[in-house]
């Protein structure tokens, strides 16, 4: 209020060249205040003063129910910690598929249906991003903990978070009926999507445009038992697909899975298929629904082809080209991507279709016109956001180029393996393979 008044004072200053400007200002201020109170509805005076009642009427107070208690939010963090500890114990220590299964049922009920899939570690990526890019936003401690704790646990014990503590993983894991094995090239290609999703999510969150991970969360509608028709259809489609292509969201979309997979690759301990020594019985190979078990390598074949080192050098040299291509594509697509931002969209709309100013049904345009914000300001704001998109999409494109290059390079890297081992990056530590292993301790 006071700011508004001061602004008005400044605006009115320009027309005056009288020595006792103070007096004039006072007068103007009062006039302004009068107008404000009469016409501006945010004024504190009422058009129709509250009557004084004779009948002893007591005025009710508006009911404002409190939001969920802060203590409950911290309780959620505690539950996450406990579930993570239990999942790690079941996967690494007691090696019990049963335990993980019941744990994921609990997670589904608690974090899924009770907490409605919100708060979740996947979405917390965006809160963390926004904290770094929006000076006005400060992340809440619970969201930060939900982001960091699973990553730290994964760095030490592998992706036990995916096995038992993620409600999105749990709902998909429980519907796996008859998983089919996808060809390796398809697995690798689809596996690039999470990187793209992650870079787009960070880009949109950093520019303050949108939280796409939350908006397109396919299962949140099922957890809430209420959503837009399209999202419900998408959720059910994912579950139906998940009966045959196990955990499609986790493997081919989840942006948090990218971070978890980085952590898990370098984890100090990880779930092992056999408790002692592998006897190469191959029983476990069909147990993994996620194609995450690496077979022993056939050294002779690789050596015979003699292509290893040559290909490696070629692919490594091509990586900068991939990055350059990514930056180029990013730079080209920034105009398109920035359209997702409401301000940019509105500015573009008004420039391209000035006739919309007369369209009474266009709420965005009419609200903007009524707000009295000058067009130049909108355009300059939109330009600033687009500038951010320009830089951001180039970085995202470069990152994608690097990822594609590294994925290709990985296909020609030869790693010696004598036994059947879980792929540390892709394994969800669900412990299905553990059940199949006949080796006793």
């Amino acid at each position, binding site marked *: *209020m*006071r700011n508004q008044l001061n602004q008005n004072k400044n605006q009115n200053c320009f027309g005056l060249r009288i020595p006792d400007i103070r007096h004039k200002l006072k007068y103007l201020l009062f006039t302004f205040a009068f107008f404000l109170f009469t016409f501006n*509805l*945010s004024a*504190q005076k*009422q*058009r*129709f*003063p*509250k*009557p004084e*009642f*004779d*009948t002893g009427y007591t*005025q*009710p*107070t*508006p*009911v404002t*129910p*409190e*939001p*969920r208690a*802060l203590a409950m939010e911290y309780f959620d963090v505690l539950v996450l910690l406990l579930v993570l500890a239990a999942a790690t114990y079941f996967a690494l220590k007691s090696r019990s598929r049963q335990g993980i299964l019941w744990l994921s049922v609990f997670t589904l009920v608690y974090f899924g249906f009770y907490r*409605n899939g*919100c*708060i979740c570690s996947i*979405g917390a990526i*965006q*809160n*963390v991003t926004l*904290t*770094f890019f929006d000076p006005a936003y*400060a*992340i*809440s*401690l*619970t969201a*930060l903990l939900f982001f*960091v704790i699973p*990553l*730290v646990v994964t*760095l030490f014990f592998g992706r036990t978070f995916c096995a038992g503590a993620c409600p999105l993983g749990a709902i998909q894991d429980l519907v796996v009926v008859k998983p089919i094995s996808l060809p390796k090239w398809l697995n690798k290609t689809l596996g690039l999507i999470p990187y793209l999703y992650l870079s787009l999510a960070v880009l949109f969150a950093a520019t303050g445009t949108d*939280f796409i991970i*939350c*908006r397109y969360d396919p299962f949140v509608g099922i957890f*809430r038992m*209420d*959503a837009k028709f399209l999202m419900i259809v998408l959720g059910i489609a994912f579950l139906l697909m998940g009966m045959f292509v196990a955990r499609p969201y986790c493997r081919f979309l989840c942006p948090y899975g990218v971070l978890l997979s*980085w952590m898990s690759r*370098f*984890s*100090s301990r990880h779930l092992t298929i056999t408790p002692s020594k592998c006897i190469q019985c191959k029983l476990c190979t069909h147990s993994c629904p996620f194609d995450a078990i690496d077979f022993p390598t056939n050294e002779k074949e690789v050596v015979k082809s003699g292509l290893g080192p040559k290909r490696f050098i070629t692919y490594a040299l091509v990586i900068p080209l991939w990055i350059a291509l990514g930056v180029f594509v990013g730079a080209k697509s920034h105009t398109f991507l920035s359209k997702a931002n*409401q301000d940019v969209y509105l500015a573009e709309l008004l420039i391209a279709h000035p006739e919309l100013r007369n369209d009474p049904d266009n*709420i*965005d345009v009419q*609200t*903007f016109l*009524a*707000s009295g914000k000058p067009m130049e300001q909108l355009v300059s704001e939109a330009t600033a956001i687009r500038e951010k998109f320009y830089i951001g999409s180039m970085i995202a494109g470069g990152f994608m180029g690097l990822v594609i290059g590294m994925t290709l390079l990985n296909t020609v890297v030869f790693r010696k393996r004598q036994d059947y081992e879980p792929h540390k990056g892709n394994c969800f530590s669900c412990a299905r393979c553990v059940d199949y292993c006949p080796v006793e301790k």
Partner: protein
Amino acid sequence: MENNSKSQSRRKFIRNGVRASLLLSLGAVSVSALRKVSGDDYVWQIDPFKCTQCGRCATECVLNPSAVKCLHAFDLCGYCDLCGGYLKPDANAQSTAAENQLCPTAAIERRFIEEPYFEYHINEDLCIGCAKCVAGCTSFGNGSMHLQIMHHICVNCNECSIARVCPSDAISRVKASEAYNVKGDFTNNSEA
């Protein structure tokens, strides 16, 4: 054999190094986020002074009916007989007949208090947050009716789907300890 163990230890060294650097970068991210962390939680709320009553609160909420409800700040109400929030502008009569009511779901209950004053009470179960009454009350009355996000209904999405499309940017995150912007409160608060 010796060669093999050497390569093993080298691999182990690299692995440990990468793990340490990953841990460090995680620590760096959390420490720099911790510098501006808030112990309080956030919820979404409407600033009634920014709201332009566009009606999107009724349609854009992930819940159906919306978690946005009309809140009546009785402190500001004039208790008028001719209520701009209750009656249609072209109402036939000042009565509770359905055809005279502005509210599409008849969520506003009109109670007689004493001549010529009426109390208007919002039935939250029926309210859909369409802001028709808010527009009426704001343009013809004191503006005592205004929209608020009701936190016993709101599921507190990470990003409010109404806030994303709100044309006047009236919805923002507020501290959970001060979860409402009730208009009546502003009369006592000179800073407002």
